[in-house]
């Protein structure tokens, strides 16, 4: 049983992004999704700091720190890209113009509730960024996460007990062992890695899991 690496989860998300989609990638793990979109497929990456048509990272030699994505990574802009200010950027987000938002998650409720930001905990300063706007504004919200939390419990839960980011917003959860669609308050398992069955997964998950009509094997390529 080989759990997906973070790169393989990013690869799996990328497969579900269709040509022509407008996609926002959250900071951290989601930012790597663009690396795995097939080169033949034109996808428009939006960065909430005012970029549309984000291209690959800058070559080390360039280092233009006025051309960064929302994770402060120096990127390029594709021909046909554009710059705009923060209000216009969040008109795109809040106004429903972004097709897919890819976010990290601490917990996902079976009703699609998302918990992915930090209220003050211990000594960490709070930060929400654009996550709440993306959660409610994007047409689809894909989350990327490990299936299990560090304490061994499934991150897909009946009711989130961490601070919420948005209500009933998650469309699909991409994890290291399964792809889960959240539809009308139910969790449908669409893909599972080799060596795991719906039955064995259910045994370790509190919420009820349903088999998706498309239930299939989750088999990523080897990636480094």
């Amino acid at each position, binding site marked *: 049983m080989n759990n997906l690496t973070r790169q393989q989860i990013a690869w799996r998300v990328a497969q579900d992004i269709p*040509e*022509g989609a*407008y996609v926002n990638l959250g900071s951290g793990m989601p930012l790597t999704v663009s690396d795995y979109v097939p080169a033949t497929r*034109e996808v*428009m990456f*939006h960065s909430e700091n005012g970029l*549309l*048509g984000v291209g690959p990272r800058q070559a080390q030699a360039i280092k233009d720190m006025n051309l960064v994505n929302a994770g402060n990574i120096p990127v390029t*802009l*594709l*021909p*046909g*890209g*554009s*710059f*705009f200010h923060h209000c*216009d950027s*969040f*008109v*795109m987000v*809040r*106004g*429903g*113009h*972004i097709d897919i938002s890819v976010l990290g998650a601490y917990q996902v409720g079976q009703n699609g509730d998302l918990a992915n930001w930090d209220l003050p905990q211990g000594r960490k300063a709070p930060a929400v960024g654009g996550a709440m706007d993306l959660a*409610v*504004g994007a047409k689809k919200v894909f989350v990327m996460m490990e299936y299990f939390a560090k304490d061994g419990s499934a991150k897909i839960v009946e009711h989130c007990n961490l601070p919420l980011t948005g209500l009933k917003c998650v469309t699909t959860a991409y994890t290291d062992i399964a792809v889960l669609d959240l539809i009308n308050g139910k969790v449908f398992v669409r893909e599972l890695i080799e060596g795991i069955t719906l039955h064995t997964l259910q045994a370790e998950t509190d919420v009820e899991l349903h088999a998706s009509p498309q239930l299939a094997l989750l088999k990523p390529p080897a990636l480094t």
Partner: protein
Amino acid sequence: MINKILASPADAVRLIPDGAVLLTGGFINCGFADELLEALHVQGTRNLTVIANNPSVGERGMSHLLRDGRISRLICSYSRKEGTTLIEDLLESGTLALEIVPQGTLAERIRCNGAGIPGFYTRTGVGTPLAAGKEHRDFDGETYIFEPAIKADFALIRALRGDRWGNLSYDKAARNFNPVMAMSTAVTIAQVDELVDLGSIDPEHVITPGIFVQHVVATSVATRKS
């Protein structure tokens, strides 16, 4: 490959059914999508609701739709049409319903819809006949009225240049309502004077990013590129 370019105005307006609610850019007679409106006339579409600053004073497009009774409802800030009593005649015959909205309120109500905002409070119009029946509310001792977002099915806009991703730039005062309307609806159709290659519009100078534009139609095929 993403290609939002359609072959002709006729192809573009085929999407628009009878009874559609349309945002149409333009101010007095500057920046109207005349060829799209003309194609809509030729197509025979009827029972349209049109949201525009004013009925175009040009001879093509909206004038023909109005003349032939295809527009049943007009939401605008200024309903007069110079050199004709067309609007007066339509109003008198009862075939045209009219709503007058202050110009800035019209622009902001259109933006609201595209920005996920259900409406906005404004001091504009308070105490005037246009505030009748509207929610009033005080903020910091000033009275405001609530103006709801305007929802439409299509935006028919006019731009100077466009590319296959739908990025647009405009020509001077012909910009007016066009970028605002582009943001507002799920289906924006842009009539452009010129098609240009991706990247020809400097990313700093794109006024309407392609995310707000679903279809692009050029009126000058001479400069068409892909």
